[in-house]
């Protein structure tokens, strides 16, 4: 059955191993095959899975037997530990500039959720930091992108700097920053058009915006339903822009979200926020441990282990 979590898978394996006090090498191999399958079905990138499984296998074989845990629980704990470690262990806050404004630039593939997340971030900053953010409408390509941003901006009560769709986005950003300086906005959020990481011309446009604006934060916005290609795309954006953080969107769906692990693993950049809905207050700080649990589908098993 597809989409079985690791809990269900492992329960099956362990029903054949019942009564064993300690895991043999063969047992570990069986278990790791299930872990591998669970990760692949969660869309974790193949190469990332390979490295991860190797790491866990070594630790599982060398592990001391803990009396309080059954062998299955012990492996799960190791998997969970390693996964959490890989995903960054702790929430990383947004970068802040020493002098205002802090400049945040949103980048990513088409339809990932950049514009919506820009709105959510502004709302988050207004609520938590009493911020006075301003948006810059840097997407001159997508039909009605500016209308969308303006509607979002109005909902959060922040101004938008825009120059329509005929100007070069780099020029727009330059003028927008001057405007923000004049208005003493403490945050500037730059919305950019969605683009493919293999689109040299549009990627170069982002590089030029970056050079001009010196953003404190370049947030790569990624759809959590993305498949194997997530690693390649994230690597492409990171290589060309040296991103500073990641926002994972659409986690209100039923995806396991393995893209999170792939992206984190190939870029090494922290996932800072997750999007959990279309509404502007549906942005949450990222917690690596919860994500680990979700990717593996470990359900209640983990809670049991935590108590042991």
């Amino acid at each position, binding site marked *: 059955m597809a989409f079985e979590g690791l809990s269900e898978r492992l329960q099956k394996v362990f029903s054949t191993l019942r009564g064993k006090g300690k895991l043999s090498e063969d047992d570990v191999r069986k278990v790791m095959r299930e872990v591998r399958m669970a990760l692949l079905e969660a869309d974790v990138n193949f190469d990332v899975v390979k490295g991860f499984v190797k790491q866990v296998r070594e630790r599982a074989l060398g592990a001391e037997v803990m009396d309080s845990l059954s062998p299955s629980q012990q492996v799960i704990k190791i998997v969970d530990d390693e996964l959490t470690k890989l995903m960054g262990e702790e929430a990383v806050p947004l970068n802040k500039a020493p002098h205002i404004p802090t400049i945040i630039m949103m980048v990513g593939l088409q339809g990932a959720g950049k514009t919506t997340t820009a709105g959510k971030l502004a709302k988050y900053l207004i609520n938590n930091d009493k911020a006075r953010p301003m948006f810059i409408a840097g997407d001159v390509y997508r039909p009605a992108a500016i209308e*969308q941003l303006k509607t979002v901006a109005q909902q959060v009560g922040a101004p938008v700097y825009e120059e329509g769709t005929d100007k070069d986005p780099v020029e727009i950003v330059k003028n927008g920053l001057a405007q923000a300086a004049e208005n003493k906005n403490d945050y500037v959020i730059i919305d950019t058009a969605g683009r493919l990481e293999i689109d040299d011309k549009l990627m170069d446009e982002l590089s030029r915006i970056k050079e001009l604006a010196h953003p404190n934060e370049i947030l790569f916005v990624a759809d959590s339903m993305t498949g194997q290609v997530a690693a390649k795309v994230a690597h492409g954006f990171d290589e060309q822009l040296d991103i500073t953080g990641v926002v994972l969107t659409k986690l209100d769906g*039923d995806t396991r979200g393995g893209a999170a692990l792939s992206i984190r693993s190939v870029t090494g950049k922290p996932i800072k926020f997750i999007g959990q809905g279309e509404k502007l207050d549906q942005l949450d700080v990222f917690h690596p441990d919860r994500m680990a649990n979700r990717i593996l589908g470990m359900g209640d098993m983990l809670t049991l282990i935590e108590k042991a």
Partner: protein
Amino acid sequence: SFGARFNRFLANFRSVDEEFFDDLEELLIESDVGYETAMRLSDELREEVKLENVKKRSDVSDVIVRKLVDMYDEEGKEEDNTLKFSKDKTPTVFLFVGVNGAGKTTTIGKLAHRYQQEGKKVLLAAGDTFRAGAIEQLQVWGKRVNVPVQASKAQTDPASVVFDAVHRAVNEDFDILLVDTAGRLQNKEGLMRELEKIKRVITRELPDAPQEVLLVLDGSTGQNALSQAKQFNETTDVSGIVLTKIDGSSQGGIVLAIRNELHIPVKLVGLGEQMDDLRDFDPEKFIYGLFKELIVGSGE
């Protein structure tokens, strides 16, 4: 890319050993066909290679390509990947559904352009009254491809907009009505019911409509696409898939799994953001694209 990697491993290939099939599995998984489909494919291929007692590298790739194309054809024997139109004078209605940001509105713009160019009278319905700027986005597309848009104010009931659009299409003798809907994740019950209602409104007014319910799927989606296809199919009886953004790095291999499990054919593919970037789905080309360099490389 898949092809390049495939070629590389064929180049290193000595005999038909287990490692070969491990590599094949890896390549299939990396194109998002899904773990189970990858396993099934490689098992069947392993069987076939054994049966035919193949030893030479070039023969192996031949067998594999032939088998893959066979399997693909077989799964889709009863499928029809052409778009359906109204059989009488009443307008044809296509309903577009899918998760957030998949490419519904853009695909509608492109398809409107195609039919407008063919001399048909096309109407668009702005059934996404929820997302910021959604109505304006469809209106820009309407202007761009010179096709009218039936729209109401933001936040009005989408079913009522669609109702108005169907009436207008009938009264003003439109040939085709393309209905946009808001993106929604398939696990949101309330939103899925809303979609059901939209479809019901169309069928109540025009019993043979919608002629197509097209699920728009982002080509870079992983295994969640299966869940999307299942849920949208349950609510709205999806008749075809539009696979978008295949101009990106992804293989779109997940449609193989969807085809195997749910037998929903891909009908259109999107390969860019411009109005001409839409093609009819060509299964052979798709397979060819997926395994291109294998096929090319097998000649040696």
